[in-house]
């Protein structure tokens, strides 16, 4: 195993696992043959080709199956991550509900939508009750104070309507996704702590009304932009649908505090809307030639 081969193997990790196992060797042969003798560092042109080829292979592998159902599943996974992340810091006072919510998220990620439905409905009811300050299922001391990751009591800023909207959207979509098994990558679970963490306060003015932590801003913007690029490459609308659903929930939260949103909230909202609209248009752009 020469140094060059090891570097090319490392670069080939840009390709998805299935593609790599099936055709990795083939590409490696060609790379090593076309590299000149005594070459130790991959050529810049080849590196760019491999990285962009790998990313596009990943996108085209994801862009299989019915785009609308997969886009719907993508959207409700994102919304369920946000809902579960909202509960996570209150593990101490609401252990059962955090566990139920996590189970629901896991069921959705593994594609077992019918199992997730009751869990989502129950957690949604409880979360809405807390947001409305009512008691449901069990006695909980309201307001619910956090143990870690954030300093704010549960749903102190989001009204019951926004919370209910989030859960209702997920619950309504689950029966539609009954048939084909959709599974998401486990990385979605890794997003949980990142979204739950209150993180550095980026929007200070109006922050106490509707806090948006920097990490959540950056994560959402990055994922939606990545989705737009994927839609552009594969001419597939699923990521646009997913972003639109997430944006819908975010908008209901924003709409609740409309009269005292700060300029930064509006700028962020405008940015996400712009990227989502762009990602909806990109898959249907003009085909320059028959094979475009």
């Amino acid at each position, binding site marked *: 195993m020469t140094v060059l081969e090891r570097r090319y193997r490392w670069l080939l990790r840009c390709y998805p696992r299935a593609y790599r196992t099936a055709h990795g060797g083939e590409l490696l042969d060609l790379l090593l043959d076309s590299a000149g003798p005594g070459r130790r560092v991959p050529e810049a042109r080849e590196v760019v080709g491999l990285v962009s080829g790998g990313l596009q292979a990943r996108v085209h592998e994801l862009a299989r199956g019915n785009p609308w159902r997969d886009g719907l599943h993508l959207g409700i996974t994102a919304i369920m991550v946000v809902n579960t992340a909202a509960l996570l810091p209150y593990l101490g006072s609401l252990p059962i509900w955090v566990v139920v919510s996590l189970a629901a998220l896991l069921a959705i990620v593994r594609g077992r939508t019918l199992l997730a439905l009751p869990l989502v409905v129950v957690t949604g009811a409880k979360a809405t009750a807390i947001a409305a300050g009512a008691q449901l299922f069990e006695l909980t001391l309201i307001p619910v104070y956090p143990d870690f990751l954030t300093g704010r009591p549960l749903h102190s800023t989001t009204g019951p309507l926004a919370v209910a909207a989030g859960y209702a959207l997920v619950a309504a979509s689950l029966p539609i996704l009954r048939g084909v098994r959709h599974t998401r990558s486990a990385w979605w679970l890794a997003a949980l702590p990142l979204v739950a963490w209150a993180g550095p306060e980026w929007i200070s*003015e109006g922050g106490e009304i509707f806090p948006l932590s920097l990490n959540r801003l950056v994560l959402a913007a990055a994922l939606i932009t990545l989705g737009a690029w994927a839609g552009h490459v594969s001419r597939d609308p699923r990521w646009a649908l997913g972003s639109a659903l997430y944006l819908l929930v975010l908008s209901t939260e924003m709409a609740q505090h409309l009269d005292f949103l700060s*300029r930064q909230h509006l700028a962020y909202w405008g940015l996400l809307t712009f990227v989502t609209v762009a990602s909806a248009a990109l898959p249907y752009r003009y085909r320059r030639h028959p094979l475009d």
Partner: protein
Amino acid sequence: MSRLERRYRWLLRAYPTGYRSDYGDELLGVLLDRAEPTRVSPPVREAWALVLGGVRARIVEAAQGPAWTDGIHLGVMVLSLFNFAVLIPYASSVPVWLGMSGLVVLCVLRGRLGLAIPLALLTGVKVVAITLGKPWLDETLLPVFADAPWEGMPALYGNGGPLAPLASWLLMILGLVALAIREERPRRRSWWWLLAVPLVAGTDPAWLDLVAGSPAAVVRVGLETVLLLAAVYAGHVTGDSRWGLAAALYLLPASAVLIETMATAGRQDVAHWGLLLLLTGAATAVPLRARRHVLL
């Protein structure tokens, strides 16, 4: 004159006046010949092509003449505009110097460098005096406070250190000297540039209060972004790097501001500087790439 012709004439105003007077009729003739007799409003495709063609014609016309001279002149003009705008809130306390820096703007705009250099030098010395708190040249009560609508603002150059104002004035003077040395006479700039002055009046970069999102600060950042994006597009269309050069000239004082106020600079100031750096980088890189691909 049919309604269609009037609408096409209105669309042709996208083209620069020189081009319009030379070829406007020709384009109009072809447009009207091609239109079906019953047509009343221009088709979207033609309208869009005219607007785009007009903008490109304006950019190509702006790309005439030596790139270095024009680039420096553009940068110097933008700097003089911003330097003048910063002084406006303190008109009643430093009227002489405000008038002088206004004259500098006019001279740079009309391309009369001989007059601009001494004025810029004098005002520059006074600016340094104010920042260092020395009573040079004339008696001004220090620190200088803002007038009526801008009372909330801190004293003139009170916020950042002496480096930033000095940097922007010195850079302007150096640019003027460089232009004077080169024999080509810089072109006259359009009066529209003066429109920027009221927009950015009183927005001292050192005090640019982005966090509070004060309207003036947002307008200034918006104007900077729009101008830099236009520079990137112009560089892409013509492969000419004068706009990149002007953007770089503008970036230097902005960087001096950030370096000086580093201790108190908030996240937004750093993000603002990052945006400027990114756009300036694009404005300088895009023309080189465009030149490599012959855009025939």
